[in-house]
């Protein structure tokens, strides 16, 4: 039996559609779900879709890190926050608020989308997987400034969280 129809190109296109749908459906679920936990599940679905996109771009390290950090840690912490703030169930938002929310979401989408449509990046051929060693080398040589800036941002966020935690404790 030959599997001629199963070319890499067709497989990649099918997977792209699959991941795209996961992102889209997850995003709609995250915004439209009445229950916050279901919204979080939508977010997780979106994160899986994005991770799949990274896989298509031959960046398995980024894809797996996405799952490890966002699904395994960040979403779970969001769930924790939902649990701790339970009981403040708000009614459906008013119509005006909904329209404003749609506008706020559409503005950056239109701006970025317009830019992308006008200056579409040329496809640079089949992506090549970069080895983990090369990735590490680049992070500590060519991109060391960005790398250090990110660690600074994370450090400030962490210190801020600790300060907030202490304030809450002192006020009790």
């Amino acid at each position: 039996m030959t599997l001629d129809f199963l070319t890499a190109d067709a497989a990649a296109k099918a997977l792209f559609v699959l991941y795209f749908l996961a992102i889209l459906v997850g995003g709609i679920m995250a915004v439209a779900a009445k229950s916050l936990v279901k919204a979080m599940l939508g977010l997780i679905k979106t994160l899986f879709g994005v991770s799949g996109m990274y896989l298509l771009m031959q960046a398995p390290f980024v894809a797996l890190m996405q799952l490890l950090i966002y699904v395994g840690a960040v979403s779970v912490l969001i769930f924790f926050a939902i649990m701790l703030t339970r009981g403040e169930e708000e009614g459906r938002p008013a119509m005006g608020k909904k329209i404003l929310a749609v506008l706020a979401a559409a503005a950056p989408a239109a701006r970025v989308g317009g830019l992308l449509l006008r200056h579409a990046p040329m496809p640079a051929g089949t992506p090549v997987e970069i080895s983990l060693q090369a990735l590490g080398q680049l992070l500590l040589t060519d991109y060391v400034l960005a790398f250090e800036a990110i660690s600074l941002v994370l450090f400030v966020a962490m210190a801020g969280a600790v300060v907030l935690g202490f304030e809450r404790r002192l006020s009790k």
Partner: protein
Amino acid sequence: MMALADLQIPGALVRLVVALAALAAFVGVNGMLLVYLERKVAGHIQRRPGPFEVGPHGILQAVADALKLVGKQLVTPNGADWLLFWGAPVVSFMPVFLLFLPIEFGPGLYGLDVNLGLLLILAFAGLNVVALCMAGWGSNNKWALLGAARAVAQSVAYEIPLLLAVLAIAAMAGTLHLGEIVAKQGSWPWQWNVALQPVAFFIYFVCSVAETNRAPFDLPEAESELTAGFHTEYPGMGFGLFFLAEYAEMIVVSAVGATLFLGGWKGPLVDGVWWFLFKIYAWLLVMMWIRWTYPRVRFDQILNLCWKWLIPLALLNLLATFVALAVV
């Protein structure tokens, strides 16, 4: 992607399908075996024979239990969220097969040859806590919700020292490919990573017990205070799937531990898959021994142990590893 175009896709695909079928059998058989073993070990530790009625020495007890679970009516509790409630056991069990794929059971005996095997396992193991959250929230039950809250705090905390301990080994081996990590170790115990990284081994072991929610760290289910924690409301195979996933995850953590620290399938005299299975079962028996020996710790104790002791210890160990790597 171009290299995969012609005949290689079916080749890799066949390997994957065969591996998945073999792993399904492996998980099922070992799950049954572990249930029996757990009850026997518990029995003998507590000076009683354990299950004895079904078959000689109760050897068919697990089969009887499985039939009973399958035969039970599936009841959804009042006010429970159907999607979350029934989605949770599936989300808990589904990634299990993925976790086994990159593990090298013997020379060339693996499901998927992936450079980032270790990362793959760590990434998909995180889905289990999502499943616990869904179960705890969807059950509409206070015990279940408390169990989920504990599961979240515990697993997020213990993931950090676990990752740091694993990172020390990965840095030493210079790879995340499980097969290559095994290849870098020798056949004799003093050539294994545990001889070079005893602190990382200790941290990994404690975290593996905590991440699989086993006593003395079984706070998410804690039957004496929370009935059964996150799976209080689950009938029949809903509970069965959680149970099977827990045992499968125990096998995964022992298999990864044996790969990282105990030389994988390598052993004195004759290398091979038997050494790997022997190490996995030795690891599992120690986990059972601990479960039936020590009482459950309090929740603040378990978190303090992680944040105040294990994480600083793991960071120091990592620093020492890097210094040693730079000097040598």
